[in-house]
């Protein structure tokens, strides 16, 4: 088999590359191609062309819009994956078991009794120290605001019930991302304006327009962190925006 594999490697794996780009190879073929591509520039280059072809085919498929919260799920999962790696135990179970056995054996031997008592004393001291450290960690955690990012969902008012959107707010950041969909088209002398509301005071966060599909987005900016505001509202204003809202609210949401 090695001889055959070697022969295939020398002759390249051109015939399998289209299937690899489509992801349809069976396990044996897959292993062969992956291994070959590690060291064959010619086949790797061929593969990239087929992979780009498969990518182009994706452009003309039905392209559903994922739910708005998928973005935050993706980021959350990436964090969880990291957490998993960081919190993994470094000792295999079998080694932990052998440690328990060592302790048990220690108490069974008369000579080891003193050592055993001392060991227990050290464990007790370490345990108390651990509790104190945990308390300190909890106190520090309590001082840290939870959640790095918050999605504020915006709901359409009676004026535009089909419209929806969200503002992505980052902790202690003066900038955030706004996206709206299905917003009514405006006349050429009008634009949407987002208002950042705190204690009833409204501050402009920027103006934006929407395309013919009613889709629009904006990098919202303020002089204070966006998560310090109570709510967001969007109104229709004259082109360029107004110092204070003059139109009716189209969208709104609370932090």
């Amino acid at each position, binding site marked *: 088999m090695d001889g055959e594999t070697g022969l295939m490697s020398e002759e390249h794996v051109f015939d399998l590359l289209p299937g690899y780009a489509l992801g349809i190879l069976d396990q044996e073929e897959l292993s062969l191609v992956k291994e070959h591509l590690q060291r064959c520039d010619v086949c790797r280059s061929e593969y990239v062309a087929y992979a780009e072809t498969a990518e182009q085919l*994706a452009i003309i498929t*039905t392209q559903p819009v994922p739910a708005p919260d998928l973005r935050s799920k993706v980021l959350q999962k990436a964090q969880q994956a990291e957490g998993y790696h960081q919190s993994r135990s470094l000792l295999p179970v079998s080694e932990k078991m052998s440690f328990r056995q060592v302790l048990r054996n220690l108490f069974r031997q008369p000579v080891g009794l003193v050592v055993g008592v001392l060991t227990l004393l050290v464990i007790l001291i370490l345990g108390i120290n651990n509790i104190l450290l945990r308390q300190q960690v909890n106190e520090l955690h309590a001082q840290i605001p939870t959640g790095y990012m918050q999605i504020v969902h915006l709901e359409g008012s009676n004026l535009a019930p089909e419209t929806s959107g969200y503002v992505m707010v980052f902790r202690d950041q003066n900038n955030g991302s706004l996206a709206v969909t299905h917003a009514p088209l405006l006349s050429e002398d009008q634009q949407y304006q987002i208002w950042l509301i705190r204690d009833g005071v409204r501050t402009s966060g920027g103006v934006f327009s929407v395309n013919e599909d009613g889709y629009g987005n904006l990098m919202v900016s303020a002089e204070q962190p966006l998560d310090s505001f109570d709510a967001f509202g969007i109104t229709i204003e004259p082109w360029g925006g107004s110092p204070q809202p003059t139109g009716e609210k189209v969208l709104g949401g609370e932090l």
Partner: protein
Amino acid sequence: MDYSALDDASLLEMIANTYGKLNVEPILNGALGTLYDRYGRLVFSVAFNLVGDIETSEEITQDVFVRTCEGAHGYRAQLARVSTWLVSIARHRAIDELRRRGVRSEQAIVDWVDGERQEQRDGLPVAEGPEREVETTLQQQTIQQMLASLPADQRQVLRLAYFKGMSHSQIAATLGEPLGTVKSRIRLAMQRLRDALQDCGMIEISLD
């Protein structure tokens, strides 16, 4: 920091340098979030067109971006575009899911859209927004013409491979055709499409 101003390769480099490290979550989130903004829908669509349900497609999308983080160190910009890489991961992950289930998805999607069929599927709104620009539309029309020009038997096997994720042998069994014939048709179909796309300048011509 304006992550949207960075190119894909720079975002991946940023992800590679921050993934798994403490106290750099804002940078990782910024870079990964921007990459998702660019390709999240494409990845989700690739998965949805194979597995056919929203929940699994969301799970696959999450996995693809986690794998992207894990593999960011190994990405080489000169070998493939980030979008190509993401689509490839998404297809392999979705087909793995189909094979794990052991049953074939019965989703309604079994063919490429013809440009006019932008309709609702399973309650999901289809393509809309700024992506639907003139350039994209022309690009889509070109690819549709290329597909239409394929012989019917080549298009048939390509469709089963692309939307059902069937292996060569599964397609051969489904169609009652010899395995070699199926392999040959898929290879010829992909070669024709690749050559046509290269002729149009829609994909790079290899210099190796």
